[in-house]
């Protein structure tokens, strides 16, 4: 099936199986390996990307559903001031250990702050409830998001 969409702000036209997972399309066809496969069932959030600005699980999206959509992965997002703020704050708060879950958490954080620039602790927890981390625990990730919301005032 012919799939036309925008990937990291570039127009793409490809011919793929419409059932192919967006996750595999991004990793295998476009070499975007920030997108991780953790559970493959939409539970861990390691494969989160932005679709039209909103966080989505790329393991649950068949290629046929991205036609006409704008997909942004960490590789595209990292060029923005918002990314640089999240990166700095995650580093300062110790939000990263092994790093496998981190791209998903960063994209979920962007989606959350985009919708709600000044979230409460509870709103951060709810906003990141689709992401699992097995190393740091969640407190330091929540601290990183709080720091980004505070220091990045005006970016979102």
């Amino acid at each position: 099936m012919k799939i036309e969409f925008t990937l990291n702000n570039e127009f793409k036209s490809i011919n793929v199986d419409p059932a192919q997972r967006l996750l595999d399309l991004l990793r295998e066809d476009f070499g975007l390996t920030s997108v991780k496969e953790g559970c493959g069932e939409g539970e861990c959030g390691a494969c989160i990307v932005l679709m039209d600005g909103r966080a989505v699980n790329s393991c649950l999206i068949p290629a046929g559903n991205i036609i006409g959509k704008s997909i942004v992965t960490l590789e595209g997002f990292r060029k923005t001031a918002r990314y640089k703020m999240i990166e700095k704050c995650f580093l300062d708060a110790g939000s990263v250990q092994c790093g496998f879950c981190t791209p998903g958490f960063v994209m979920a954080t962007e989606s959350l702050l985009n919708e709600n620039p000044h979230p409460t602790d509870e709103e951060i927890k709810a906003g990141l409830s689709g992401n699992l981390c097995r190393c740091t625990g969640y407190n330091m990730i929540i601290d990183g998001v709080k720091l980004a919301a505070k220091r990045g005032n005006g970016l979102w």
Partner: protein
Amino acid sequence: MVKGFRPETLKEALKLRAQYDCLPIAGGTDLMVQKARGFALKPDFRKPLLFIGHLPELQRLEVINRQIHIGAGVILTDLLNSETIPDIFKEILALMASPPSRNLASIGGNICNASPAGDTLPYLYAMDAQVVLQSTDGERIIPIAGFITGPKQTDLKNSELLTKIIIPQTEFDINMYRKIGQRKGMSLTKAAFLGMANVADGKIQDIRIAFGSVAQTVVRSGKIEQSIVGKSTKDIVKNISEISRQYAALIRPIDDARSSAAYRKKVSLRLLEEFFVSNLAKVSNLRKAQSKGDIE
């Protein structure tokens, strides 16, 4: 390679549905998991896919004659952000899956998946919601309870698409929803309870009670509800064990990886008691106090 159809209009989609033996897919959050073959592999779809999630006709959310009409393709996030959706339904939606899944999952998909643990279903049953099923031959409008015929089974015909859900715009004074899961976020329901009621002059005017995940389909009994309407909240609280016994006969859960049948049944009946004893009694006492002018 599996074939995919991506119509631009509902009319075109219905034509394709009539012409081919195909599988309608909206957000894909259930189907992509059910058909998954594992790490880095394509899901195992045997039929052509009919993509319908993007259809503009299925995105509408409007109030017509005091009924909320929800397009089957509306995603859970958009329901949560809508001013039209009652707070109790939003409370239910906010506990479903996680934000990145709610950004994909459609209400129509949750209905057609017909899981006994489907989280929108207790509310839709309790509200006497109706589903609109369209085909090239016309449309059928039937109650949700008639549409879902068993676990993972619906009355959807091969030529039909679920296009709309119609919910009466009724709000209740007393609302209680409890979802029992392993954790708060991203959890699949072990048992769910929904109780809604209107109380006036200490008497129950309307009551809706629905249990999720504890039988083949949602448990709701019009007969028991009718026997409660008109009674005083005091009498109901006194009679709670009898009401509980009646529901106990309808609650037939299973043992599975998520929970045991015994736990599901016990917790469901405890939630029923909590609804009557804590919520109903408390609110009706509050009302009495308010009418006497004790409380602002």
